[in-house]
């Protein structure tokens, strides 16, 4: 009787997750599998696919692709480090219930919900080396204007800064939630023992925030790895290839040069990379994260 009931419950469970599972398979698993299939063909979307084995992967083994990987790592690393650091600093500053803090939190978070396209266009204008607002500001204080988007050695870091400006509200809000989950007793006990500001942060706040930090590192890394819109609008991968990051590279191979096979091979590698990165972060942090108090 009980077994029958359990079986019935199981069926009900499958039936309930079925629709979303089907959708997940259709718009996520199927495309990934299809990319893996296309990655062993040469295909330009016009003439029939030609089987080439692993040639697409071999072609990716090139300095050009290496540069894309380095660019992506720099962009992603820069965004994660800066967004985490600044997000935490802002969260510590604004972690009170005053009206000013609430107002500032809302202001800072607002850029997070604005569309990437609008933000990118806005910054293109502000950073114009001849008549942008930022250039104007620099001239006012007697500094030489910087060619933010036109110089190959600067452009990638400009994108990092704009991305941090855009996404900073996200780590801020998550860190605020993390801070508010730390019981006040700890700080009281620490105060009794004579712990000062830095020590309280080092031995209470930071360790107890580690699950939050792990969560942010994983989500920010994956999100910044998938950066595309900002490149598409602000630099299109240029100057030369200095801002060619991974997803834009895939887009360019597929829809500018119509090398669907090579692009798909890059997708497969990307899938593996993200999987690996997530596993690695999970393994490293699992030991060091304190989940319960």
């Amino acid at each position, binding site marked *: 009787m009980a077994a029958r009931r359990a079986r019935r419950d199981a069926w009900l469970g499958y039936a309930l997750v079925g629709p979303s599972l089907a959708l997940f398979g259709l718009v996520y698993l199927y495309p990934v599998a299809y990319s893996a299939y296309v990655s062993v063909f040469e295909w330009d979307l*016009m003439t029939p696919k030609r089987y080439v084995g692993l040639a697409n992967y071999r072609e990716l083994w090139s300095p050009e692709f290496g540069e894309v990987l380095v660019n992506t790592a720099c962009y992603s690393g820069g965004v994660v480090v800066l967004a985490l650091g600044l997000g935490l600093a802002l969260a510590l500053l604004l972690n009170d219930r005053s009206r000013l803090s609430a107002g500032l939190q809302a202001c800072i978070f607002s850029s997070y919900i604005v569309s990437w396209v609008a933000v990118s266009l806005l910054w293109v204008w502000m950073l114009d080396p001849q*008549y942008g607002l930022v250039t104007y500001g620099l001239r006012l204080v007697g500094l030489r*204007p910087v060619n933010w988007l*036109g110089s*190959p050695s600067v452009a990638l870091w400009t994108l990092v800064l704009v991305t941090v400006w855009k996404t900073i509200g996200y780590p801020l809000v998550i860190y605020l939630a993390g801070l508010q989950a730390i019981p006040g007793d700890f700080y009281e006990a620490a105060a009794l023992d004579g712990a000062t500001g830095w020590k309280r942060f080092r031995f209470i706040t930071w360790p107890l925030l580690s699950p939050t930090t792990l969560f942010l590192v994983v989500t920010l890394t994956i999100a910044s790895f998938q950066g595309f819109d900002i490149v598409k609008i602000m630099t299109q991968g240029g*100057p*030369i290839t200095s801002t060619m990051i991974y997803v834009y590279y895939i887009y360019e191979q597929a*829809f500018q040069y119509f090398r669907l096979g090579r692009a798909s091979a890059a997708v497969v590698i990307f899938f593996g990379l993200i999987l690996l990165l997530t596993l690695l972060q999970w393994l490293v942090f699992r030991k060091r994260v304190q989940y319960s108090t």
Partner: protein
Amino acid sequence: MRRMLAVVLGLMWVACAGPAAADPIVAQFWYSFGGKNREVTEAHIKKFNESQSKYRIEGTFQGDYFQALAKIRAAAITKTAPAAFHVVGEALPNLWQAGLLESMEEYAKGPNGTDLADFVPGLTQAGYFDYLGKKPAPLFAVPFFRSTPILYYNADMLAAKGVKVPTTWDELRAAAGKLTVREGDDTKVYGFEVPVDWWFWYGLLHQAGGSLMTADGKKAAFREKGQEALQFWVDLVNRDKTMKQPPGKDYSAWEVANTDFINQRVGMIFTSTAFLNYMTENAKFKVGTAFLPAKAKAAVPTGGTYFVLLKDAPTPQKEAGWAFIKWMTEPEQTISLSKATGYMPVRLSAVNSPAMQSFYKDNPNYKVALDQLKTAQRFPFSPALFDIQREVIQPNLEAAVLGTKTSAEIMATAEQKANEIIGKHDK
């Protein structure tokens, strides 16, 4: 309740089906114009639909030429492609060879045909392509919104500095020097600006006396003259510091150049005749236009787009597409399209019409591109052309101007890659 439902459903069916007999044949047309030219295109589509009741064209904006091309190729796979679209000339050999395009011979010579002899020779498919000694392809592309690059200059600025309109590379270089205004390290006004782009490079290549391929199309042959062309930009940007390289890729850079010109941050630019109307309307100074300056010879590429029909579309829709193409290229429409944009009229009878002749008299700028056609250079009808343009030349020019590679290195690598692509297509 049930009866009520039946009535509602019945009404819905009637509403959806409509009176079957009078239904026009609906066909899709994808285009690549934003801004002002989009309005012009949409207005003409509307006029076509109102001019007759047999066909109805639905136009959709699909991003710039290259974005639209990606969508076309993706749509062709999923059999959702439109009956008609327009495409840049360089992409045509590829599309034709892959069998995507419908031959228009039958349409053009059929009962609803058009007068092919009346098309401006330099603007037709035959005028655009060099068939490299092989048999010409049948008619599959009809000119629509065709252009050439021209030299735009700020006539007030040139007059104030006593600068003559340049006609050679050397004169251009000297003029750019005289027009440049510096304040300390800051350049307030640049003498010259042009997107470091395939199309303008192709013009310079031919002006220097070169060509993209050998006469039989079996080898790339642009190394030496292509380098001379590229080095001209490098010298202007880095040695003279009188040319601004507009940042951004593809049409982003074009927009920057246009905006700088209108805002008087630059004295002279090369860009398409397509922007003539836009410049004239937005500039607060006298806009002058001239032929591109010459080096070994005067030369200019043509550009803009061609109408094509997709082979996979159902026959009635292709007929609708053809009717639209035929109508859009009739003298009356080609005149109004040209006046509203700056693209060239594609019909001889339109060019010679009293309306157009008196328009040219009042607006001589509009005639420059047309007159310049006598120095127009063809493009090789090679399936490698598009890959050479998009993958070999376009993304690599910039590195020379930004100083990370020399023009010699770039052109040596480019020619080698181009030969690999040609070899692949020859197989």
